[in-house]
């Protein structure tokens, strides 16, 4: 178990290096950081001076190594635009994004699991068809369009919910729904398929033969087994939600790190973009490892060797 985790961690580390290196090259291709820092009114001499000061005249790989070494201790440098430490900017905003992501995945699970279960108990019934209908519609709905339509209906016409900001819990309702529904089709299909398969298995027949009550058979025996892959997938989807938060945060003016990355890109604020890419990638890597370990924990047959 320990060896497995160590090996995974090592590979994860390599992945993060590759991801950040790629992003680093990409951003240094696009802009001249010295110019961005100097501002619009600076002279050539000023820009050159800044370049030397910050070391932008060194080869790219050298710059990357110094960035990476500092990043490992949590120092992501300073924002070009805001003159603040990037790590401070991020730590101030990451809470919003995490809250949004978590609510979104919980929302998705709250819909998918019951719907998928009922659809599995009564396949081809009207509720099964509704569930599949929701899945099909959900997969085709563009997230940002759904968000905008919700704003018009719930924020403007009916005035039920606020459309901007992040001060109260109501501010999170529409963003949660807009972000979360996209995971619902996949999770619901997996729940349904898993439950159908589990309900046909022999140990469910044994449970019924013991005279156990239907609820016990359903929850204690069936769901417990069917849910394992769903939970793993949910962990991975949580990672996707964090990445997909950019659009939602921008639309709803929730100033989390998704919004921050968008803002930074507009301003060519490289250190911020670099840092956020690394953070998203780290989340994904950690979440997939977590999903695997969760899988192993929930299924006694798997021993992680």
């Amino acid at each position, binding site marked *: 178990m320990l060896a497995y985790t160590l090996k995974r961690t090592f*590979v994860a580390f*390599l*992945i*993060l290096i*590759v*991801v950040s290196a*790629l*992003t680093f090259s*990409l*951003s240094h*291709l*696009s*802009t001249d950081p010295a110019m961005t820092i100097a501002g619009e009114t600076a002279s050539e001499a000023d820009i050159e001076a800044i370049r030397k000061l910050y070391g932008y005249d060194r080869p790219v790989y050298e710059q990357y190594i110094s960035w990476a070494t500092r990043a490992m201790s949590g120092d992501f440098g300073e924002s070009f635009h805001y003159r603040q430490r990037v790590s401070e900017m991020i730590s101030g905003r990451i809470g919003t994004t995490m809250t949004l992501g978590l609510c979104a995945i919980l929302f998705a699970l709250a819909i998918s699991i019951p719907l998928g279960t009922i659809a599995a108990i009564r396949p081809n019934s009207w509720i099964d068809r509704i569930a599949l209908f929701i899945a*099909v*519609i959900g*997969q*085709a*709905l*563009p*997230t*940002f*369009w759904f968000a*905008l*339509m919700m*704003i*018009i209906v719930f924020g*403007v016409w009916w005035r039920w919910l606020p459309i901007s900001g992040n001060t109260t819990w109501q501010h999170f309702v529409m963003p949660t729904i807009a972000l979360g529904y996209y995971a619902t089709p996949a999770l619901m299909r997996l729940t349904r398929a898993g439950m159908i398969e589990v309900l046909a298995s022999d140990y469910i027949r044994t449970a019924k033969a013991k005279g156990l009550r239907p609820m016990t058979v359903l929850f204690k025996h069936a769901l417990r087994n069917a849910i394992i892959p769903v939970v793993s997938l949910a962990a991975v989807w949580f990672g996707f939600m*964090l*990445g*997909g938060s*950019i*659009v939602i945060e*921008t639309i709803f003016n929730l100033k989390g790190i998704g919004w921050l*990355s*968008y803002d930074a*890109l507009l301003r*060519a604020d490289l250190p911020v*973009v670099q840092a*956020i*890419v690394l953070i*998203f*990638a780290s989340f*994904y*890597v950690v979440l*997939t490892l977590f999903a695997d370990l969760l899988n192993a924990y929930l299924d006694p047959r798997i021993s992680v060797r």
Partner: protein
Amino acid sequence: MSQTSETVSSVPLGQQLGANQILDEVFEPSPFSKIRKRIFKNHSFLIGTIILLSILGVAVFAPVLVPHDPYDQELSSRLMNPFWHDKKHAVEHVLGTDKVGRDYLSRLIYGAQVSLLIGFSSMLISGIIGTVMGVTAGYFGGRVDMVVNFIINTRLAMPVFLVAMAAVVAFGASLTVVILVLGLFLWDRFAVVMRSITMQARDLDYVNAARAIGCSTPHIIVREIFPNVLSSLTVIATVEMANAILLEAALSFLGFGVQAPTPSWGLMLNEAREYMFFSPWLLALPGACLFMLVLAINLFGDGLRDVTMGQER
């Protein structure tokens, strides 16, 4: 009273059953009619195909269908309303005009071209990249497989949206760049599935059987493995095409995709945001078009899988 003569004259049940079986074999429908039957039974597949073909038709015949040139700016008739609004509405602009006077309907129609073009091209690029990687990994195994797996995992770890935006910033926002960026990012599912199919096919019974009767390797690949592969490939192709279309729309919506004046539905949504509280149709229409297109592609892909399932082996 011999037993045997009694048995013969009584037409035992077994003989009757045998006759029925022979009849069944003679009248068994041909593979084509079986497929045709399955297609028409599958309602969602039909709906998806019809919608898809319609949108395709609109895109192909766009130059003929549009009432105006979508790039034509008529600054004197800016922000006209569609025909169901009776305040300021012009007869020649059925759905009104946008903020620089371009006919909305024409832009909507041309938007289909843009979405389909982007979706198809990036799907093609990502398909080629992913298939090559997946087949290589599956066929060679060992270290090659490890390397490819690492590449796939690295790609999955990247926040696609963010890095795509950064790439667009780096290389400039244009149709070509968007297509290339999407194509270079959406190959992972192709790779994963092609890898597993190749690995399975390598050791499959019917491949070994074919080899045993002397078929050469290319023959095996074309005749035995390919049909099996084709159905999985088409399904993933539809999924990735839908993904590409949605991704481009989101990028354009945030301003990191196709640039004005190209009529992209995502871009139109971006432009609509300013006026969304007063003219909600500016939001509703392009989004609905996106939704219909993606829905059609999904239904088509799902239906294709259902219809061709049970065809192989």
